[in-house]
């Protein structure tokens, strides 16, 4: 017992803290620092301090504002659909009870598939001409022509189409978390409600959902953060097109940096993006999740 407990705990945490400081905090610091400079894309090129110029350029750029709205819309679409589908499945599994266990396992497998593979797969399913989705809808009599809906070529709907792989990949995550939450609802409460004559909708909206609120909040916040960072699935499906209609924030920053070679502007965009995400996440945690206030 040469050193006291507090110091021992500190020693245990130091390597991980150092790692995060060097490989997360320092790059973030560089990102913020770079956002005040006009930087040549070439190594060793000129680097001029321009103050807030990059921020002004970001906020006056139509691309940036557009990408911001698209990211928001994308996140809302993904999280809403995923939540609705995941809750439906979780309720289904819960009402079917123990015997559904093997099915729950099967239901989980897309979670393990790389997003890039999922994006590729759905591109293949929705592509014009030989995409299976259009053909099946045509054969089912819903569409007159298999190519009637240009899933990935129509700028009006492409933002929805590129969200499909994301929804497909992570609905099971939402389902599992909600299922775990449902398992923890005390049965006597349900029994009491049933004796009081509550029917299914009342049961769902007045008893189950309020009881699940903390679990729902955490699931929504976690998935919201992930959806707002979507990159792989969109890049492989449309690369942001057509006409930037599916260009979300990650893609825009990536392109500003790599294609247009403007690290200063890209850093300013990245900084705003990060701050916005932190702000929204803290707001969500404070208002919906309310840690500690829900018991």
């Amino acid at each position: 017992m040469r050193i006291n407990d507090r110091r021992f705990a500190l020693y245990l945490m130091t390597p991980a803290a150092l790692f995060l400081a060097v490989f997360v905090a320092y790059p973030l610091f560089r990102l913020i620092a770079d956002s005040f400079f006009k930087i040549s894309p070439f190594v060793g090129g000129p680097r001029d301090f321009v103050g807030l110029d990059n921020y002004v350029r970001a906020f006056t750029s139509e691309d940036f504002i557009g990408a911001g709205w698209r990211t928001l819309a994308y996140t809302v679409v993904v999280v809403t659909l995923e939540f609705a589908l995941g809750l439906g499945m979780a309720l289904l599994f819960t009402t079917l009870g123990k015997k559904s266990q093997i099915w729950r396992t099967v239901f989980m497998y897309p979670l393990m598939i790389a997003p890039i593979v999922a994006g590729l797969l759905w591109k293949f399913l929705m592509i014009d001409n030989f995409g299976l989705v259009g053909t099946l809808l045509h054969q089912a009599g819903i569409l007159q022509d298999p190519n009637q809906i240009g899933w990935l070529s129509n700028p009006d709907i492409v933002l929805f189409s590129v969200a499909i792989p994301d929804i497909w990949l992570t609905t099971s995550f939402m389902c599992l978390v909600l299922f775990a939450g449902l398992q923890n609802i005390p049965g006597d409460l349900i029994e009491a409600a049933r004796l009081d004559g509550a029917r299914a909708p009342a049961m769902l909206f007045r008893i189950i959902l309020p009881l699940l609120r903390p679990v729902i909040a955490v699931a929504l916040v976690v998935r919201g953060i992930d959806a707002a960072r979507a990159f792989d699935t969109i890049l492989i499906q449309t690369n942001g097109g057509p006409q930037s209609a599916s260009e979300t924030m990650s893609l825009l920053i990536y392109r500003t940096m790599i294609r247009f070679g403007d690290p200063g502007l890209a850093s300013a965009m990245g900084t705003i993006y990060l701050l916005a995400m932190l702000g929204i996440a803290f707001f969500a945690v404070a208002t919906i999740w309310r840690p500690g206030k829900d018991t």
Partner: protein
Amino acid sequence: MRVAERTRNDGGKAPSVAAGPSVPITTGGSRRRNRNINREGLEAGKRSTRTVLWILLAASLVLYGFPFLYLLLTSFKTPIDTIAVPPTILPREWTLVNYISALSRSGVVASIINSTQTAIISTLLSLILAVPAAYGITRYKTASGRVFIMAALVTRMVPPVAIGIPLASMMASAGLADTPIALSIAHTTISLPLSIWLMSSFFEAVPQDLEEAATVDGCSRLGALWRVVIPVVSGGIAVTAIFAFLASWNEFLFALLMTAIRSQTTPVVIANFQTQFGLDWGSMTALAAVYSIPVILLTLLLQRKIVAGMTLGAVKG
């Protein structure tokens, strides 16, 4: 730590809202009893209702599973069948030609080796850093520990695209450009925070008497951690390792920014198929299948552990 304490009280799954002041903290036994009542509570009673629900479940699962099945079936089609109009579901002729052509392309096998190598290094790095840190946070409950675990949570909100470029240039100036080590480090920035949260909740479940007994018997604190606590949480370490491995195996953005030729991983190669070779759907589907099947098998094998980690990870942050 409020979250951690709360989740532990009700079985590490969901904060229990219903537990009023009169309900004592549940023990293992009464929790099980609760579950049984729960089953009677939420399960559908009538046989006809149940049948309808089973059919609904089967239909949704077929629909949900179909896309990947179609990818598998496509990978066995001849290149012409792959893009036939209208598309067929089953291959007219089963062939392995796509697998042969995908795997014989230069760089493909190397990329699978790179992916494996990167994921293993990143998993080990993540565990080596996260296990002691999480132990320090949960066992001693110091203020610095609370600050640290919140800071780790905030790290989850950092978009990879924001740190990707500065990270890549840091690696380049350290002479690590285009190496599996550099990419492993980048992947660890993603998996470390989650690993710390997961391991913290596993350590929460270990009774402290265990190590106290060991220290009384003459073990040092590190000795007690290594010989007594680590074996007890080995299941949790396995879960954490699976998640760290998967995070690296499936990651794309860092891999795109930080690798060129020598250390390219398979997701980047799959993405490059689109431009370099036109749209060779047959080879793409074959490589995608090769890359996905091992992790799907692993998942089915270890599904209980993964479900535990997933719900824990989500509820905690």
